[in-house]
């Protein structure tokens, strides 16, 4: 059986390398760069070209497959159903459920306001809604697989875990602070639409998933190109000394800088991962890179401006501070214990 076990782990490693990390694609692009462009893939220019082509193709393939799969799952959890499930729970259990459902509910920052209003007017505590709003952009199934592809499985799972913890604790804290008075009055007065439990046929789910792929692709492709472009530039052109002076493991401010720079930026995890990947390649701590990614995806100027329409300033400031503080702590935690994961 010893031989059998070894074979299974080898098969798994092969699947992981070829399907997830796409070693075949890396080799193919290396061949293209060397024989097609006449550049050395290990060299400076060739390395950047290789990073760019390989990462763009890899992310686009994963994006297509993952969004399709995830959307299929999501089609079972429309916001109306999520609201009903959450309404049946109380206390911490509701926050945990909200954080978990945040990972699988169809949601983009453009629908955060109707969702916020719909949840709140139905009587869900705002802390529960915030647990959902934090987890939703931060952790989703697609980002987990991507993290596993770029880094490895332990980092991906650790990322999900701390992301969920941040969502649960952040939402619970907001509940504790009794901030209901800082929600605009019209939110509570909005009617609750009797939720029609529209059962979808398989064909409708397929169409939903297909449309999601097209829509999300149309929205993120530019961010992916920009993200990979920045990643490729960091990879081979920005001096390592410069990056390590700013964000090096030994610099106490590295996580702080990464978080503050990331907060106003608007992009999703697909665009930020290549940057994080390149930064880690330059010796930046994994915690610093994760803090940057989380800050970019969880908080952004556009989403804050939208939220401002339904909540008053003190609650908005509290929300941003809690999430930022959480991200900074996660960053330092991973920098201290990250060696376990890499």
């Amino acid at each position: 059986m010893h031989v059998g076990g070894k074979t299974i782990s080898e098969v798994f490693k092969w699947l992981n390398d070829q399907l997830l990390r796409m070693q075949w694609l890396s080799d193919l692009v290396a061949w293209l760069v060397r024989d097609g462009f006449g550049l050395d893939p290990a060299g400076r220019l060739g390395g950047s070209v290789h990073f760019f082509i390989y990462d763009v193709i890899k992310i686009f393939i994963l994006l297509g497959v993952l969004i399709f799969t995830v959307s299929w799952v999501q089609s079972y959890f429309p916001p109306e159903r999520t609201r009903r499930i959450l309404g049946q729970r109380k206390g911490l259990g509701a926050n945990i459920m909200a954080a978990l459902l945040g990972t699988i509910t169809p949601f983009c920052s453009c629908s955060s306001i109707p969702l916020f209003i719909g949840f709140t007017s139905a009587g869900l505590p705002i802390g529960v809604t915030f647990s959902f709003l934090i987890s939703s952009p931060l952790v989703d199934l697609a980002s987990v697989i991507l993290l596993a592809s770029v880094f490895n499985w332990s980092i991906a799972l650790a990322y999900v875990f701390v992301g969920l913890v941040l969502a649960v604790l952040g939402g619970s804290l907001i509940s504790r602070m009794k901030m209901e008075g800082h929600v605009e009055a019209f939110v509570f007065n909005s009617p609750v639409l009797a939720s029609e439990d529209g059962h979808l046929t398989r064909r409708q789910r397929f169409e939903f998933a297909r449309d999601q792929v097209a829509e999300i692709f149309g929205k993120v492709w530019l961010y992916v190109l920009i993200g990979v472009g920045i990643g490729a530039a960091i990879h081979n052109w920005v001096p390592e000394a410069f990056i390590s002076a700013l964000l090096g493991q030994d610099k106490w401010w590295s996580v702080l800088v990464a978080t503050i720079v990331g907060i106003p930026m608007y992009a999703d995890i697909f665009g930020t991962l290549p940057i994080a990947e390149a930064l880690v390649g330059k010796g930046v701590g994994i915690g610093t890179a994760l803090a940057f990614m989380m800050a970019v995806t969880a908080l952004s100027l556009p989403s804050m401006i939208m939220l401002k329409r339904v909540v008053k300033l003190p609650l908005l400031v509290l929300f941003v501070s809690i999430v930022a503080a959480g991200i900074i702590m996660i960053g330092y935690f991973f920098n201290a214990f990250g060696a376990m994961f890499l």
Partner: protein
Amino acid sequence: MIIKILGSGCKKCIALGENAKAAADAAGISAEIVKVTDFAQIAAYGVMSTPALVIDEKVVSAGKVLSVSEVAEQLAAI
């Protein structure tokens, strides 16, 4: 008849508006298509996912782009 399209002005809202117009035209109904983009107004209908279709102040669908024939069914039901 007043048909309202609720949504932030995304591509899907435009598509839904076009389908609604086509369905109304085909049914020979003179309908005014109104686009509602303000969040507060959208929320006032209790809608959580956009685009949503409102016919004579009644929400008939949310979160999906109805095809021309689906809109026609809704029009016939009213």
